[in-house]
């Protein structure tokens, strides 16, 4: 137990549009059966990091519900455990989390009351598998003060919503730019960091005194030359879901056999809250092509190239193509849905027509549901 974990799960992002009206980005459903934060939590658990704080703020309701019991990720332990921290009025502060560094500052006692030498800080809105122990070993070997996990995106990828960085041949980070207008590099920060716990406490306390609140701007970029900050390249699959396009693409990635094999078949597993739903049911008239279907679904119509989340009902003669249907949606007969993300718990009347003509349409419909 060399490290404790912090998962930053407070964020909202206007780029994901209406989908965060009812949930935090980290609670976004992924790949039929999971939620975004499951990946970070499972990585922590599989890396034997037993004490983890989840810092939540924005629209934390459905995230808290998902985290109502820590047993699904094996955090129900006497040693360590899962600590979900929302902003609270205290003697020192009555503010919301004003940034990532401030969120940690307001929970400094979590760091101070631990004895593990290192802290792994990750964001909860990324889909990936990673053994944080390898990262720790790298960090120790490099005698780094801070190690930043980074990834090379393809040369034509749009990196303007990430932090980009440049490393020297020893992997020490020389340049770090947050959300550059014109990027000098296509190596981006994945929002995964390792720091020695005492040094983190020191830096966070300093930030607080100076009224600085952001981990990237006020620590990484500010201390870039004073501290030994190293980059650790991630080679495996990694995807951030904080825009509608990335969210859609990430889900669709799971239609590829190699991605399913990597996440679902290879060690270690990804864990999630168990919902106790019956098996998926296909009635006469169901036609499914190249799609993921989750438990509790009842399908009577046609589904092509889509990801259908749990407990969805698809009526007769429906045609669903290249779409994502989130949890517990009822789709009436003869409905056409194409290039859409249908918001969870929606009820779509029979004979509806939705087609994303330019890009992805987000469908939020809450009609009265007639029972079956």
């Amino acid at each position, binding site marked *: 137990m060399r490290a404790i974990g912090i998962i930053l799960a407070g964020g909202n992002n206007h780029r994901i549009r209406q989908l965060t009206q009812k949930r935090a980005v980290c609670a976004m459903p992924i*790949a*039929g*059966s*999971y939620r975004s934060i499951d990946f970070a939590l499972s990585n922590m658990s599989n890396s034997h990091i037993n004490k983890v704080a989840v810092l939540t703020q924005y629209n934390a309701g459905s995230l808290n519900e998902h985290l109502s019991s820590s*047993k699904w990720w094996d955090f129900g332990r006497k040693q360590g455990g899962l600590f979900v921290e929302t902003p609270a009025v205290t003697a020192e502060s009555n503010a919301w989390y004003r940034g990532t560094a401030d969120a940690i500052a307001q929970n400094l006692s979590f760091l101070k009351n631990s004895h593990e030498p290192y802290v792994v800080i990750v964001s909860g809105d990324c889909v990936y598998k990673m053994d944080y122990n390898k990262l720790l070993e790298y960090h120790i070997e490099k005698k780094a003060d801070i190690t930043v996990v980074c990834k090379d995106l393809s040369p034509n990828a749009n990196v303007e919503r990430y932090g980009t960085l440049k490393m020297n041949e020893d992997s020490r980070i020389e340049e770090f730019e947050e959300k550059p207008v014109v990027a000098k590099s296509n190596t981006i920060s994945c929002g995964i960091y390792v720091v020695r716990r005492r040094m983190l406490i020191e830096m966070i306390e300093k930030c607080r005194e100076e009224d600085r609140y952001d981990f990237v701007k006020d620590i990484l970029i500010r201390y870039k030359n004073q501290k030994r900050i190293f980059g650790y390249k991630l080679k495996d699959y990694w995807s951030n879901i904080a825009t509608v396009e990335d969210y859609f693409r990430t889900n669709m990635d799971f*239609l590829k056999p190699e991605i*399913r094999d990597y*996440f*679902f078949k290879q060690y270690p*597993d*990804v*864990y*999630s809250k*168990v919902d*106790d739903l*019956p*098996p*998926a*049911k*296909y*009635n*006469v*008239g*169901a*036609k*499914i*092509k*190249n*799609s*993921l*279907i*989750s*438990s*509790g679904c*009842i399908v009577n119509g046609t589904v092509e190239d889509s*990801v*259908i*989340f749990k407990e969805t009902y698809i009526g007769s003669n429906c045609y669903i193509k290249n779409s994502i249907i989130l949890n517990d949606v009822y789709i009436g007969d003869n409905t056409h849905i194409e290039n859409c993300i249908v918001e969870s718990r929606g009820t779509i009347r029979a004979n509806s027509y939705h087609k994303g003509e330019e890009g992805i349409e987000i469908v939020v419909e809450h009609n009265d549901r007639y029972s*079956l």
Partner: protein
Amino acid sequence: MVKKEMIAMLLAGGQGSRLGVLTSKVAKPAVSFGSKYRIIDFPLSNCINSGVDTVGVLTQYQPLRLNTHIGIGIPWDLDRNIGGVTVLPPYEKSANSEWYTGTANAIYQNIDYMETFNPDYVLILSGDHIYKMDYEVMLDFHKQNGAEVTIAVMPVPMEEAKRFGIMITDENRRITDFEEKPANPRSNLASMGIYIFNWKTLKEALLANSEQPGLDFGKHLIPYCHKKGAPLYAYEFNGYWKDVGTLHSFWEANMELIDIVPEFNLYEEYWKIYTKSEILPPQYLSADSVVEKSIIGEGCEICGQVYNSVIGCGVTVGAGTVIRDSIVMNQTQIGENCELYKAVVAENVEIQDNVKLGVGDPVPNETDPNIYDHELVTVGEKSVIPKGVSVGKNSVVFGVTTHDDYPDAYLPSGKTLIKAGDKS
């Protein structure tokens, strides 16, 4: 002080030999049912849904799968500070150690367990029926009638009554007499093997009959209570209840789940059936797949065609394979261009490419004609069926088989091919 109004004792030690090779390595309650469930999930879920949070599970025959499935009871919310689920295997005593020799004998050997909870009532269940039942309603009936023993019964067609234990009651549902598998039944109320006893009555009866060899509820304990004049009542249950004791009834009950609105509905929100879910990911259906009238569990990869079938979790079905009227249990791998017709394939089986199951004309099974019938092909767990072979109807394959076991690449109908485990 620890106090539970009613505790449940679940009899899960039986082999269920009429399920053939399906139970040669696992106890019947641990046999998988309805894609992702196991038979014991139904009584366990009924317990927690009825507010019974203390359940002793009596195990004896092949308990490994059952033990790992139950664990500390997390899936059923039976991990409790006080009570919860406890697995009760037979144990050695300073004198007269013995196996559980009968249903009531198993309960007798666990009097100490029951005593810990200081119960008013004890609910006796068996782990091999598929049903949803609110035991609290049955308890209310028990209390209202001032019964000492209440037996759950269900009306069956008169011509089938001779297969069951039959209760004869007066107009108030008080039991006046009973008959075990009568040739000429006087009533059609069949015992479901579900009893509520007043704890005092049960304890007294168990102690009084402790010397009886093979002490059984139906044969000894109920008649003893009746003879003593204790008020026995029959609680009539009219919902879905299925004894899946034979291979054919097991297959039939699975097939009933795929009806448009099945009589036994797993999709109701307010009486959930819980199970241990080991596999979480969604299922993938490829561009060439065809799936109709089927239920399919988590994590499957379906590239072939599936009609009228029940497929467990983590199953792969290769391209060009056609599965009809079959049951395929968890983690079984089926290759390409196979044909399965009325097959019951247990867990972790490997069926290689171009295998055909259920071909030819039916012939009665050579070793166990009463088990392997109704044209079903049964494949035991962890079996391997090599490339390109065909297997006839009413046949059974169990173990790692090779081409040498199939002369002319064909196992005719009615043949038994068992290479591992105990012959059933």
